[in-house]
């Protein structure tokens, strides 16, 4: 099946094209869209792409990180100032996938993909949506809740740089060193003195989209990061999740092992 490919210099023009043309899909890294094209998915009539350099731009300051949605995992790994995201980017496929897979594409990847999106959710990221009439900002959590409802083009993702080692990430796979997620967990654990304040925990592959573990976050508030302090959070770790049965793991298995891996992530390997 032949599809039409339209390439735009400006991201705004690409956004207009996908919002006005029926069957138009934006090509970011292509690791998922090209698979559908290869399978002759009849829903894909037009591929829209953009060569806008702003789409791939990465800007890092001491306080804030801005990732163009077209920035690849390889580009993130090449950026020394983004060390906090290196473990996450390295968890996305092998080197060839990382050269193509983008930040923006990961936000729309179906479960069990989307580990990077889970990390950005824990980091309380804001997305900027491109449109023919300008840009607007949205919390990533809101975007994930409505991402399947229509043509949306994310131009960039921003978040505040977390303090010290407050951000943690773990991906659980059955195939090593690289495999699809049984689940992934990202946690932002700010400490005031020795107490956790304002924790954000996000899961990948525990629902249709990456989602927050709000019950566990509440249970961690004011607690210390030790076995006794995190016990209430582990008890409610799976609350609000709705994992699927797939070839990687059953929903039951995902729920069973979630508290174990959350415990390991929160305590650190040396305390488990």
């Amino acid at each position, binding site marked *: 099946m032949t599809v039409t490919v339209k390439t735009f210099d400006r991201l705004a023009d690409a956004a207009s094209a996908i919002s006005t043309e029926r069957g138009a899909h934006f090509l970011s890294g292509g690791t998922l869209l090209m698979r559908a094209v290869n399978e002759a998915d009849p829903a894909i009539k037009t591929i829209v792409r953009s060569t806008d350099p702003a789409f791939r731009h990465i800007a890092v300051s001491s306080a804030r990180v801005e990732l163009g949605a077209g920035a690849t995992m390889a580009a993130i790994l090449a950026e020394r100032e983004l060390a906090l995201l290196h473990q996450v980017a390295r968890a996305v496929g*092998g080197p060839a*996938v990382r050269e193509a897979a983008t930040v923006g594409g990961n936000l729309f990847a179906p479960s069990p993909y989307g580990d990077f999106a889970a990390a950005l959710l824990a980091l309380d990221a804001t997305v900027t949506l491109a449109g023919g009439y300008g840009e607007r900002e949205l919390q990533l959590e809101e975007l994930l809740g409505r991402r399947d409802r229509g043509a949306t083009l994310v131009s960039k993702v921003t978040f505040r740089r977390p303090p010290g080692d407050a951000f943690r990430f773990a991906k659980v796979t059955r195939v090593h060193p690289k495999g699809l997620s049984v689940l992934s967990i990202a946690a932002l654990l700010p400490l005031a003195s020795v107490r956790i304040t304002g924790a954000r925990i996000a899961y990948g592959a525990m629902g249709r989209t990456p989602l927050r573990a709000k019950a566990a976050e509440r249970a961690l508030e004011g607690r210390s990061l030790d076995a006794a302090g995190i016990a209430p959070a582990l008890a409610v770790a799976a609350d609000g999740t709705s994992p699927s049965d797939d070839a990687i793991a059953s929903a039951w298995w995902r729920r069973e092992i979630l508290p174990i891996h959350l415990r390991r992530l929160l305590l650190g390997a040396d305390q488990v």
Partner: protein
Amino acid sequence: MKTPIQLRLNGEDVATFADGGANLLDVLRYSVGDLTVKGGCWQGTCGTCTVLVDGAPRLACVTLAESCSGNSVETVAGLRRGADLHPLQTAFMEHFAAQCGYCTPGMLMAAKALLDRNPNPTREDVVDAICGNICRCTGYEPIIAAILDAARKDARRSA
């Protein structure tokens, strides 16, 4: 509608036409005629179609061919150095790193991408470099040994 595509393929300029939405793998095999690139899954999963685009490893089956127009593309067909095999090819033979051989083109190109950037890789580097390439025959160990050996021999030659 056909789209004109120009590539620098293994050091030579190549011009062809591709169907809209065609992937790089199909264009290389069926339009250009480079049959050294293998297709396994057409899903970006198995890695056998790995080629280098501007020196970086890419899965040709999920790469829009048109997005590579004007770029350099390297395949196994370009690995030989004159009459000699590439050190990686020799090492793969010496270490029995190919059994059915289907994954071999992708493994070789993934390994070349690694050694071009990191001539002295650790075992961990090698494992990471080929972690997106599936081999169902060898158990990977002969492939890892071959890549490490090729790196050692290339380093000795360059010294």
